[in-house]
Structures are given as structure tokens and as C-alpha cells.
């Protein structure tokens, strides 16, 4: 009978926004910084980005086939992972590095834990840390490939502004803010990343609590323990360089690997800020964002457990 009525439990209406829409919004917010990276570092950077995205998408499809699970490309999460991973690689990386990274991100970090929603670490960052440990030389080679638009005076071969800051050298702050400098493909433009992040916060795709508490607590940590006293120029150098903006707005806010409770998100952000500060100021490497985020990812279940909200009428605030 064609005219049978549908019967289901209420509610009978749904909001328009779905998960693919949210993922596409994240892609849109990342796009300016990614495009800037390609302009900055030349066609080689584009190749890296394409390779990470294609390999992430390919490995996800392969895993779904192997595990006889329904195809999940439609949720666009693999594309986001691929783009983020690519933006976290240096443009000078050999062609196979993005593919190895994509395989690690999707197969090990994401699919073996159960796929989207079940992974305990951000796949892109998990892969980046894996590559950093395994191929330290390649991952830290920030020499500018040929054909690049970027013509930064190559005095300190391979040094990023953040490393320069750590080394006590002065950097060109405005160049770092705009992104006309060295680094991984997608992390250099603090300005475009900030705009993208604000766009996501304003459209409520991400919760402002995580980036705000992360960047805020990191700033406080740098002012307290940076050894420069209340030096706003030094603080600005720390904020605009390295992976902080990319990490705070796009990686720490990954839904799956951040706490769901509002208070938990603030605690998560503070833990990130403190750890990033510790790693950057007192660690052996100049970078600290990636390790801070994957470490805090592992704290999420604990943070959630201690921040369950009191239900309405159970003594909590109105």
C-alpha cells in the first residue's frame, strides 16, 4: 500500500545542519590559510596537500571495504583530517611522507579505534607526531622549495620564526602575523587562521571556550614564565608563530577528541595552554602545540567525568 502513513517516535522535525555541513564549514574556514600556504610555498605545497587529502580519503575507503563497514566518505571527516595533516607538514617534504602520514592518521589513529567519533586522539596530530618522531630531519626541514613565492632571506637555513624566538633572536612580527614566513604549509598565517577560527566560532560550528581558554592561559603562562617579564612584543611573537593558531582554533576544537561539557572545555583549554607553554619554554624543541593537544586528548574522559553538569533543579546554577 502506497498510502500507508509513516509512524515514528517524536520529534518529527529535524534541524537542517548535519555533520557533512559542519565538516564543510571547517574546510571553508581552513581554505584561506591553506591557499596562502600554497601561494607562499609554491606548487610543491599544493602537491603535499593533495597527497594528504587523497591518501586520507583513500585509506578510509580501503579500511571500510576491508572491515565490511558502510562507506563514510560522505561525512567529509577524512577530507578535514587530510587537509589538517597537509597543513602540518613542511612544503619540502618528500612525496611519500604525506602518504605515510595519511595512512597512520586514518588506519592507526582513526579506523582501528572504530572510525569517526571513536578515536581518542586527533588523527592529523597523531600522524604529525608520529612523523616528527620517525622522520625528524624531514619534518624539520623548512628550506623553501623552488618555485615558491616566499623569498625570505635564507640566512638561518631551515629555522622557523618560532625557533628564532626560542633562540633569542628577533623576528619580523608583522611578517609572522600575516604569514610571510617559514613554517609548515598551513601554520604560518596567524591572521588567516584567526579569521577562519573566528568565522567558525561566530557561526557556532566550534565552541569559543576551547580556543579562548587555550590562548588565554598560554599567554598568561608566557608572561609569567617566559623570562621576559611583561613584554607584550615577546608575547605577540609567541602567539603568532608556530602551530598555536592552527592548533587552538582547528585541532584542539576537534569535536571527537575534546570534552563535551562546557566546564570541561575550559579546563581542557587551560591544560593545553599550560602544557604548550611548558613544552615551548622549557622543552628541547621550539614547538609544543602538537604534543600538548594529543596529550590532552587522552585526558578528555577524565575531564568529562569530573565536569558532569548538575541537571536542572539538582542544585546547579540556573
Amino acid at each position: 500500500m502506497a498510502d500507508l502513513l509513516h509512524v515514528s517516535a517524536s520529534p518529527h522535525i529535524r534541524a537542517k545542519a548535519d555533520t557533512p555541513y559542519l565538516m564543510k564549514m571547517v574546510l571553508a574556514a581552513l581554505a584561506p590559510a591553506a591557499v596562502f600556504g600554497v601561494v607562499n610555498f609554491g606548487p610543491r605545497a599544493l602537491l603535499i596537500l593533495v597527497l594528504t587529502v587523497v591518501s586520507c580519503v583513500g585509506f578510509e575507503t580501503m579500511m571500510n571495504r576491508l572491515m565490511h563497514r558502510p562507506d563514510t566518505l560522505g561525512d567529509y571527516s577524512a577530507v578535514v583530517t587530510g587537509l589538517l595533516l597537509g597543513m602540518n607538514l613542511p612544503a619540502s617534504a618528500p612525496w611519500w611522507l604525506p602518504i605515510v602520514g595519511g595512512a597512520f592518521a586514518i588506519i592507526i589513529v582513526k579506523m582501528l579505534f572504530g572510525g569517526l567519533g571513536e578515536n581518542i586522539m586527533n588523527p592529523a596530530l597523531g600522524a604529525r607526531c608520529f612523523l616528527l618522531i620517525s622522520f625528524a630531519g624531514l619534518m624539520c626541514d623548512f628550506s623553501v622549495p623552488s618555485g615558491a613565492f616566499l623569498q625570505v632571506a635564507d640566512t638561518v637555513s631551515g629555522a622557523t620564526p618560532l625557533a628564532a624566538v626560542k633562540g633569542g633572536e628577533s623576528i619580523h612580527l608583522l611578517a609572522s602575523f600575516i604569514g610571510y614566513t617559514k613554517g609548515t604549509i598551513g601554520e604560518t598565517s596567524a591572521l588567516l587562521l584567526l579569521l577562519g577560527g573566528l568565522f567558525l566560532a561566530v557561526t557556532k560550528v566550534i565552541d569559543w571556550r576551547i580556543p579562548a581558554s587555550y590562548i588565554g592561559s598560554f599567554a598568561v603562562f608566557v608572561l609569567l614564565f617566559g623570562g621576559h617579564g611583561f613584554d607584550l612584543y615577546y608575547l605577540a611573537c609567541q602567539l603568532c608563530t608556530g602551530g598555536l593558531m592552527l592548533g587552538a582554533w582547528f585541532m584542539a576544537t576537534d569535536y571527537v577528541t575534546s570534552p563535551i561539557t562546557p566546564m570541561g572545555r575550559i579546563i581542557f583549554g587551560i591544560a593545553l595552554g599550560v602544557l604548550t607553554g611548558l613544552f615551548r619554554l622549557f622543552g628541547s624543541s621550539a614547538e609544543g602545540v602538537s604534543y600538548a593537544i594529543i596529550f590532552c586528548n587522552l585526558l578528555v574522559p577524565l575531564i568529562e567525568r569530573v565536569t558532569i553538569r548538575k541537571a536542572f533543579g539538582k542544585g546547579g546554577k540556573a
Partner: protein
Amino acid sequence: MSREKLTFHGGIHPRGAKSLSKKVAIQQFLPQGNMIYPLSQHIGAPAVPIVEAGDYVLAGQKIAEAGGFVSAPIYASVSGKIKGLVNHLTLTGAVTTAIELENDHEYRSVEFPEPTDPKTLDKEEILRRIGEAGVVGMGGAGFPTRVKLSPREPEKMEYILVNGAECEPYLTSDYRLMLERPEEIIGGLKIVLQMFPKAKGCICIEDNKMDCIELMEHLTADEHRIEVKTLVAKYPQGGERFLIQAVTGRQINSSGLPADAGCIVNNVETMTAIYRAVVYQKPVIHRTVTVTGSAIRHPGNFDVPCGTCVNELIEAAGGFVCPPEKIVSGGPMMGFSLFNTDTPTTKTSNCILCMQKDRVTAVEQMACVNCGRCMSVCPEKLIPARLARFAEHHDSAAFQKWYGMECVECGCCTFICPSKRPLAQSIKSMRQSVLAERRKQNAKGGK
């Protein structure tokens, strides 16, 4: 004049869709077919029939007596011959015993006594008249009003809230009632205020019905015990707990009743029923029903004798423009989808919503990404995503520890979920199973 706008934490803004039927005045509707009166149109014990097959009854004549303290009697809404008891499908999808009445199309009514001035009546008589008229919560829950108006500590009642929020999309029956019969609503409220001398009356209306707010303010300008409260239009503002919190700042949880917060909440339609029951001694035999939705040719609002079949109402609204995929009794957020239209309306049916397309069955369910949207819209401040997972694993201990039993089943989480997961549905069935488990425990403890 600027009005303070009251609201609550969480909630959603679904498309109102009220404009379909908002402008259409309430039309009297005379049913042509036979009438079906389910014996259970309220919370509590079913009514007990007092008529037999072949009896001739008039509109307004009692056909079933209240079956206990928490129960309500049922009256015939047209004249005709009783055909007998039948098992009939109800709007909520259950099959219950009902009285079938053969409509004689004469629409003859019993004689009602002369109107009385409520001021001359004492509290007991008012309560008796309300109970006798079969007044129940007409916003949807159907809790017997006489019981609600008999709190354990009547002197502690400080607020009588008239719920005119009508926060569900599509519904306009309360809106039309407030515009067309405001004096009955205010009259009903005055009667309740007379029973609770220390209480203040608040007529609570969402700010998408400014005309109602202005009208009510105008009509109650000289009533020092009545205030009109403006609420932000947001679902589920009409939920009892959230209405009380918005207006009084007090919070109740699942173990409390509005009376614990010094409040009595009644829907606007219930207020008109109280007014008619006390002043005219008229029983509840008809109510306002919105017939609307994209599949309806002429959406509108009807004054419908209870027991009318849904298909007659659909005909009255011009029939279908195309075959509907889904028909819902009540609003789209908490209503029940119907199996067929040969189902009677009751005292609690406020809307018949006919949808051309049922988008719910078309959406694809995806993995939960932990985005937290369900949590941010939950008016109970729960984490629906976690509760739904506990429900799927049937982890009753974790479910209760994370306040699963506080859920009011408003459906905001399911509405907002970008992965289109049936969160509210999972939580609802888990709650029911926990409640069943508790009842079993209590029964064992009692022995």
C-alpha cells in the same frame, strides 16, 4: 512600554510554521459521523461507563464516571444512541476501550442550570464542579485538574501560571483562544485565584504572540492579582519546569511537583474549561483543535466536539492537497504519529498536523562526533549523546548517574543532532525501562 522577557537555559528555535493557521478564526465544527469516546483520555484510572448499548443520550450527558481519585468523567458531545463498548485505536497509538455513540445529527443538548457567580461558591463546591465537569490538563498531559488544584499545602501556593506559551511549531489553538475568548481565560484564572488567596496569577505568553500579550494586558489592567508575563519564543518554554523557572526563578526536578515550588500551572484551554465548569456547570465536551500542515488545503482552527474522528476534521479543513506521508496528533516536537485517520480526538488533542513529506525517515544516521550540540540545547542540562550511548548499552547505573531520569523527552537533542541520531528516543525507552524496574522493586518491597 518595554517588557521584561523571561526565558530558560537551552532550547531550540525550530521554524514556527504558525502562519499557516494563525489568521484563521476558530470555526464551530459539527461532526457528521459516529463518535468514539476512549475511557482513558487523562492520566490516572480509566473512566467507568454508566450507559448501556441502546441508551439515548444528549450532548452534555455523562456517559462514564471517574474511575478513582485521579480520574475524570466523560460526557457525550452530541446526541444519539449508544452503540456499546468497542476497542479502538487512540491518538497515542494504543488500543483502549471506548464508548461508541451513533450521532443522530440533532445535536440536542441537556439543559444547563443558570450561570452562577463564582464568588458565591466556596472552595469545595468549585473543586466539585471542576471534577464533575471532567476538566483535565488540556495542553496535552491530561492530568485531572481537580487533583492539581488540591495541593497538600494550599496556603503555600504563590503562583497560578496560565500557560499560553504554545512553544510547539504549527500549533495555533491556544493563540486563537487567547485572542477570541480571553475573558473566559481570565475568568478561569480568577476562579483559581479565589481558591488560593495568597497566590498571584501570571498569564505567560511567548513574544511571538504580541497581540495576545497586549490584549491580555489591556483586559487585566485593573486586576491587581494578575500579571501578564512575556516569554522569549523558544521551545520548550511551555514545559512546566521551564515555565516555572522562567517566571519565578525556582527549579523543580523529576522528584518534585510544581506545587513544591509553590506553583500551579494550567494551560489556557484548561482555564476556559474551568470557567465553563464553574460558572455554567458545563462539562468538557469540546475543545480547540488546529488542523494544519503542508498537506492540508485550508489549515485552520476548529471548535471540535471531543470524540470526533480525525478524518472528519481533515475534510473540514478542505482535505488533502496530496496524500500526506505523516499525520501527527499534537505538535511536531512531542506529538504522536497516527496509524490511520479513523481515530477519535479527545480532551487533550490540540493539533492534527498533516505533513506532505516525512523528512525524518529520509535522513541518514551517522556516527556521533561528540559536537555537544545536544548538550547545549538540553533544557535539563543533560548530555544526551552520553545518555543515548548508555541506553544503547543498557547501562542503567551510568544512565541514572548522569541524570538520565531527569529527561523531559522534549526532543531538542534529536532535533539539533547533526548526525541525525535518535537521541531522545533512546533515552525515552531507557527511562521507561528504568521506571519499570523501579516499579518491580517497589512491588517486591511491598510484599
